């Protein structure tokens, strides 16, 4: 576990260096509050018919690459049904966030609001960002 942790940490650092930006000291919860909460709400339940919940959705619990790509790109202007429901608002792209910020936010989402899914690493965000570009 500690080895794993070290690798994660290392990867996190290198990618932060690669961006020549400092890694954030904010927690996933704080970052979520800053960038996602107004729409998806404090409890991740969203707003009926408008902003989808982040509780037990196939995006949040599913393939991490797809999840990261979604958050980076936002919804665009065409509506995408989420688990059979449509939501009227648009989600702005979050690509201005740094890799480690997105990793922290997604790790927070995937382990809160009743979700129990694995963490998302900075390296995974970095890799997914390459494919989105």
């Amino acid at each position, binding site marked *: 576990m500690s080895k794993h942790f070290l690798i994660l940490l290392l990867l996190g650092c290198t990618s932060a260096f690669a961006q020549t930006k400092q890694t954030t000291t904010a927690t996933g919860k704080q970052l979520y509050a800053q960038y996602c909460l*107004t*729409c998806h*709400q404090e409890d991740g339940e969203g*707003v009926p018919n408008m902003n989808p919940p982040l509780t037990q959705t196939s995006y949040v619990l599913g393939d991490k690459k797809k999840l990261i790509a979604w958050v980076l790109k936002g919804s665009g202007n065409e509506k995408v049904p989420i688990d059979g429901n449509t939501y*009227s608002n648009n989600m702005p*792209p979050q690509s201005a966030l740094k890799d480690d910020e997105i990793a922290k936010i997604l790790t927070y989402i995937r382990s809160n609001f009743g979700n129990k899914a694995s963490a998302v690493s900075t390296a995974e965000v970095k890799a997914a960002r390459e494919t989105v570009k």
Partner: protein
Amino acid sequence: MKTSLATAVCFCAMAIGTIACKNSSSNPETESTSSAAQQSASNNKAGDSATLTLPAGFSAATVAENLSGPRHLVVTPQNDIYVKLSDAKNGKGIVILHVDGNGKATTTGGFGDYGGTGITIKNGYLYASSNDDVYRYKLDANNRVINENQPEKIATGLTNKGMHNSKSLVLDNAGNIYVNIGAPSNVCAEQGNDKKGMQPCPILETAGGIWMFKADKQAQKQNDGVHYATGLRNVVGMDWNNVTNSLFVMQHGRDNLHNASPQNYTEQQSAELPAECMYELHQGANAGWPYMYYDQNQHKKLVNPEYGGDGKKEADASYIDPVVAFPGHMAPDGLLFYTGNMFPEKYKNGAFIAFHGSWNRAPEPQKGYLVAFVPFNNGKPSGNWEIFADGFTGGQEFMQPGKARHRPCGLAQGPDGSLYVSDDAGGTIYRITYHQ
């Protein structure tokens, strides 16, 4: 919650100078309605129906419950109600109810296999909209639809990109129908960079405004209509004012000022700004979206941060000024100029506004699930706006909009002058009456 909401609304309304608040203490007598006396409605079904608070002499009753997303509605002189549902249920997007002498409504029919918002009656026709099209149905002498399955399609293929796609309807007295076409966007930011607004905003060519069509001509495309007014992010509540003989609309203001520009807007400011505006529109009017918003505390039109604004920089003076500016994010979904005789003289020709309530106020509690009133004289506001009906959500303060079980949406006037309010979250229709 009631007190703090009232105080909050009072506070910010006082700042815009449009409400009578005697003082700012938490004394319950400083409730924001003109009359301090509030009374409970008689519609309480053990924690299910909201208990409404209304000015003295008014009472509310539930006429129908458990409808599926009732949006706008219209009541005929024969006491039939046509209700537009947000989505068709069992293939019926319009429900017909009949109100009996005891004020209870029973469902008597339904038709129209499309969901939507707009519905209105004018000169022997029922007009209704999906999110793409406008239909009309001929009515008989008793205001019953003659052929439910063969409406005329008046306007078709209107812009619909999912967001802000409801098409509210109103007619003038000269054979025209007005349709709002909302902008599928918050502030017309560049794709991929939500901090930078597009200049000029291309969305305005096909949305973000009001289009005028001939009320009796079939199959009009959006281009066949007159682009009547522009610079309106999204309008849901609209009505024709017969005193001024002009169109009035309620705009939903932009969201997320704090996220857009944390250095210029605190989270608290972002929860109160910008104003939800009532506009009077004449042909050619431009309300300035997405370039500007209205600040109800400074009483100014300010440049949006995505267009270089900083919370102080004033916008081009040529954009029209609002008639009334309400606190932010309350989401006005219904507007009705009252022409009935049941309510006291003060209400005659004044405006009722159904506010759907906020979602974009975090970390502040949500608010604004209410019906407001603005008195009018000679076509202009003659006093402060006030809360008319409140308590739709049961009076508890909450953060999550999903907790609001009843949300006001549509307004209609009954033949006796009573006021009908639809609630598209809980599916209730309320009827508000006045007794001396």
